[in-house]
């Protein structure tokens, strides 16, 4: 095993999913996934924070899109009667620990400075 910097595995994007890929600074207190400074909301990763009911309802809030995303995949897979559509999202989102997983979307996500508009 080669030693590697731990990368943040938070899912980014809406239709075109990717992984954050910034250097992790902590592990989520709930699920243990590595998270970067941007994605550590308190002691939790954004997904676990959402699961605990911390979902902004206002689209002006940069964190809104993440909470809306899971709801959208649930509803749109019903609209299209396409269970695979939801499960492929869900698997991607939960599959954050797979070794050898691609971290960022062709490098697009892995921005060096901290200010990332699309993520909370």
């Amino acid at each position, binding site marked *: 095993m080669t030693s590697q910097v731990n990368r943040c595995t938070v899912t*980014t*994007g*809406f*239709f*075109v*999913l*990717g992984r954050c890929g910034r250097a992790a600074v902590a592990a989520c207190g709930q699920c243990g996934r590595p998270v970067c400074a941007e994605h550590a909301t308190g002691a939790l990763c954004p997904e676990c924070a959402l699961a605990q009911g911390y979902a902004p309802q*206002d*689209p*002006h809030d*940069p964190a*809104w*899109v993440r909470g*809306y*995303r899971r709801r*959208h995949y649930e*509803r*749109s897979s019903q*609209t*299209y*009667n*396409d269970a*695979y*559509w939801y499960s*492929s*999202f869900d*698997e*991607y989102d939960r599959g954050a620990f797979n070794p050898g997983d*691609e971290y960022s*979307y*062709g490098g*697009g*996500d892995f*921005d060096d400075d901290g*200010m*990332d*508009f*699309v*993520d909370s």
Partner: protein
Amino acid sequence: MFWRKQRAAIERFHPLHRALVLEGGFSVSLRRDDWEPVIQSLAGHAQHVRRRKWALPVRAQRVMVPLLRVLAADMRRDGVLSVAADMRGPDAPGKAGPQHDLPARRPVLSVKQWYTVDPWLRMRAELRDGSVLELSVTERRRNRRIRKRNPRGKIKIKQKSKSVQVVQVVRRLPKDAAVRRPGSPPPPWVRVRVKQGSRLVIRATAKVAGEQAEEQLTEGILHVTTEPFRWTPPGAAVRGAQ
């Protein structure tokens, strides 16, 4: 001077926010991150401006902003996101077509009918997988103006209208993108056309009910937008891009 404070607040808004308030729209191409100050400026609208004349179009905050968020989430920071918004509404000049008469029978004296076509939102986003997404929403309204004599002999004029929102989404995939046909067809209200070529083009068109809350409209638009992405589901899309 009246409204001095609110007028001053509008002067401090982001120029695109100001254009929405004073002109009812804008047409602009910005890099992804340059949309954030626009959204933040819009977020503060109600706090600073209460005069009805300067109200923000409801669709700007409840449809355009969520769509900006969704598209931006799939972009690189240097990707360009273009928006042409015309929120003046279907009654703005130039949107009504010619009137014509429909057959009328007593007590109806005359029926005039005309259509208004209001393309009020167009967006184009360069996505991070190399595909380009174009989205447009057009309100089509049928109007009828009915002149009628009531039992007491008085002439009454009634106007009726019915509208639909036509949503069209086109996604142009990058060359040699990994594509798979979705396992289920779209629902009957979504029409899909796929053009094969060096770049696959997927076009989804649908009419969604015109008179519904903006949140439902946004959801409807995003459901139509979903179809072109079902051809590259999450896992597959990532592998295809490597």
